[in-house]
């Protein structure tokens, strides 16, 4: 091949490359902004019509369940009970770490995997996977009458119910009575206002132990802690038309209080910024390494379990002290939903109903310390006897309790955590950080809500 031929070929290649580039640029087709977004009504994966319970025998039908690792009672007897009661066989019951489940579900759903019939869900995933058309909508006939509203909200999105709750959960305050007494505080009375709480946290911060600790080490934790602060300051995260209120006065005040607790009052354990889940936080309290936490109800079971430094006598439980309101909290209820791709939906529905029914609820309350999802179980005197913190739960629900599970929860968690960290690390004022987060969130909400 001659030199001339080679250079001609190179030029030809360059020309072809330029032409391909030009064609490529011409092939940039802006997405049609008028295309309807959410609703999950036009996608290939659809929930279809709402699932209505049928009376047909399901004897011998097999189902597979993918759960988080929150509840052991199913594996330790309830599955057996379910099989005996219904004749349905639980072919596979797998428990996985909560932080890993989202990706497993997303992968399975995207692949239209029919091998999983029942999935664990909560407010964020119900909205996200429900909007994607991956969760089976339930008809009103499939929903028990006496379910507690916040628990049902955790399996619903946009007025559609995608599952049934398995336990209710609201964060309350837990404090170490011994630490309080040693600091000269009344060990039997929870602080009622934020100022009282700060004084108590400061008084119990001694010898390298901090008066307060939380779990904001990952995006979901940062969101939860910010949301709780915003609610305590009397705010709401969205307006009725889903306009975000991150940089509202309440949002700024709430975040400012958290920053002050860490840097000004030095009463928050700096490790709070690296603790990534409630289970680790529970251990911090149960081992006596912090004097107070705002945590989920199973903190009680852990704090009173064998091996804990704390006990029922030394653990106090009460409402979270408010900043601008008496109290407020966040919801963490969980439930089960049926995969759209399941071929055993009636049997799967039986599992959902079993988990929210009296037999399972009794064990979840008594053995694991979660709140029940049915009004009847909640009002049963045996429940209060088995789980004293139920009394606080009932008080907490008289105050604002929210979670705001939305299809954009993951995006919000991620962008908000960056700004919360900037504020907590004093790289930005809370107002500036939240303004940035608000500006970033607005187009995301617009994308999903149109």
């Amino acid at each position, binding site marked *: 091949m001659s030199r001339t031929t080679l250079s001609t070929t190179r030029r030809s290649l360059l020309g072809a490359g330029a032409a391909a580039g030009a064609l490529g640029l011409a092939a940039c087709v802006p997405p049609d902004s008028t295309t309807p977004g959410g609703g999950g009504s036009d996608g290939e994966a659809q929930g279809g019509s709402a699932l209505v319970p049928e009376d047909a025998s399901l004897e011998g039908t097999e189902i597979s369940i993918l759960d988080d690792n929150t509840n052991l009672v199913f594996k330790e007897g309830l599955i057996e009970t379910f099989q005996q009661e219904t004749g349905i066989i639980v072919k596979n019951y797998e428990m996985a770490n909560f932080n890993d489940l989202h990706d497993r579900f997303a992968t399975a759903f995207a692949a239209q995997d029919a091998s999983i019939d029942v999935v664990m869900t909560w407010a964020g995933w119900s909205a996200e996977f429900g909007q994607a058309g991956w969760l089976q909508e339930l008809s009103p006939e499939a929903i028990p009458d006496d379910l507690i509203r916040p628990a049902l909200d955790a399996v619903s999105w946009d007025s559609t119910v995608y599952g049934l709750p398995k336990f209710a959960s609201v964060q309350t305050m837990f404090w170490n009575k011994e630490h309080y007494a040693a600091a000269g505080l009344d060990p039997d009375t929870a602080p009622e206002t934020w100022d009282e709480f700060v004084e108590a946290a400061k008084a119990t911060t001694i010898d390298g132990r901090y008066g307060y600790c939380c779990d904001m080490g990952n995006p979901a934790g940062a969101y939860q802690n910010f949301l709780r602060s915003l609610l305590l300051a009397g705010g709401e995260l969205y307006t009725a038309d889903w306009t975000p209120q991150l940089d509202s006065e309440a949002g700024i005040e709430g975040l400012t209080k958290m920053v002050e607790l860490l840097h000004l009052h030095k009463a928050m354990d700096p490790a709070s*910024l690296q603790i990534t889940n409630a289970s680790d936080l529970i251990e911090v309290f149960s081992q006596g390494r912090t004097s107070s936490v705002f945590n989920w109800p199973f903190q009680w079971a852990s704090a009173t379990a064998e091996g804990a430094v704390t006990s029922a006598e030394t653990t106090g439980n009460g409402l979270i002290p408010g900043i601008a309101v008496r109290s407020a909290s966040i919801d963490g209820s969980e439930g089960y939903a049926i995969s759209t791709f399941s071929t055993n939906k009636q049997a799967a529905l039986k599992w959902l109903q079993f988990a929210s029914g009296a037999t399972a609820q009794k064990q979840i309350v008594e053995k694991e310390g979660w709140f029940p999802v049915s009004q009847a179980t909640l009002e049963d005197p045996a429940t209060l006897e088995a789980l004293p913190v139920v009394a606080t739960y009932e008080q907490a629900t008289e105050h604002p309790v929210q979670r705001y599970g939305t299809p954009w929860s993951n995006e919000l968690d991620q962008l908000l955590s960056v700004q919360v960290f900037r504020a907590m690390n004093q790289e930005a004022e809370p107002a500036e950080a939240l303004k940035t987060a608000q500006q970033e969130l607005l187009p995301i909400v617009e994308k999903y809500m149109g």
Partner: protein
Amino acid sequence: MTRRTLTAGERGDRRFAILAASPAVLTIGALFLYPLLYAVMLSLYQMNDKLPGATQFVGLWNYAQIATDANFRQALVRTLVFSIFTVLGGVALAVGIARLLQHPFRGRNLARVLLLVPWAVPPVVNGIMWKLIFDGTYGVANSALAGLGLIGRPIQWLADPELIMGVLILSEVWKLTPFLALMTIASMQAIPSNIYRAAAIDGAGSWAQFWKVTLPNLRGTLMFLLIVQSMWSIKVFDTIYVLTGGSGGPAEATTTVNFLAYLTTFSYLDRGYGAAMSITIMGIVIATTIFWILLLGRRKEKST
């Protein structure tokens, strides 16, 4: 040029060759080419699973978006910082270790075996190990520093956006350096000893021998190591996932381009844009490979 007619035996050999190679070709096709082509196709669509009604062909629109995406740009900068330390630092450290292990000393064989230990540790275990070492409350790092009187209060290594990148770099270098060092040792052993003898006769000291004899003879190996380490660094995922609890935090401080592609695809369910990011990352890996080949390959041509 006229085509020669194949004999019956040659045709039989060719058929057998095709038959023998077909399982490998089919496997590669199924495990590599199909996903690759599918990813390329996905990248040409707006496809967000949470907006199922809005799926549409957008051509190269996703790529145009990446070019102006501030998040991707920031992730690229983090990837660059991470790669500079792990690629250049890792390879330099490997050469240093290899040089040390070239010298005969008592226990050298044991040292060479022990060198392999970090390489044998599974990536997830490696991440967990470093997470425990640098835990702000229980970590050995804080205990050791406090024991030496260097710190008064625990450092939150994993909660500080500036410190966690250092932890990430350290854990990756610790994991990958043994492989790099092993390759370098093997290459050093292949350098003829008479070259060193000739250099010594010419009066070259050990430092001069290293610069004038060892390094030039390692050029091919170094090019290979720089290429593979660059690939690994750009594609780093598992250690970040374990160290940060799957978040790429704190404050996105460890969100590299590959991790951002993961978040976009699996957390935000934006599969079209995530696929475009993945293809872009593949382009970056190829470009980096070409860069090293041009840089070191050409020098080799000149030197020969």
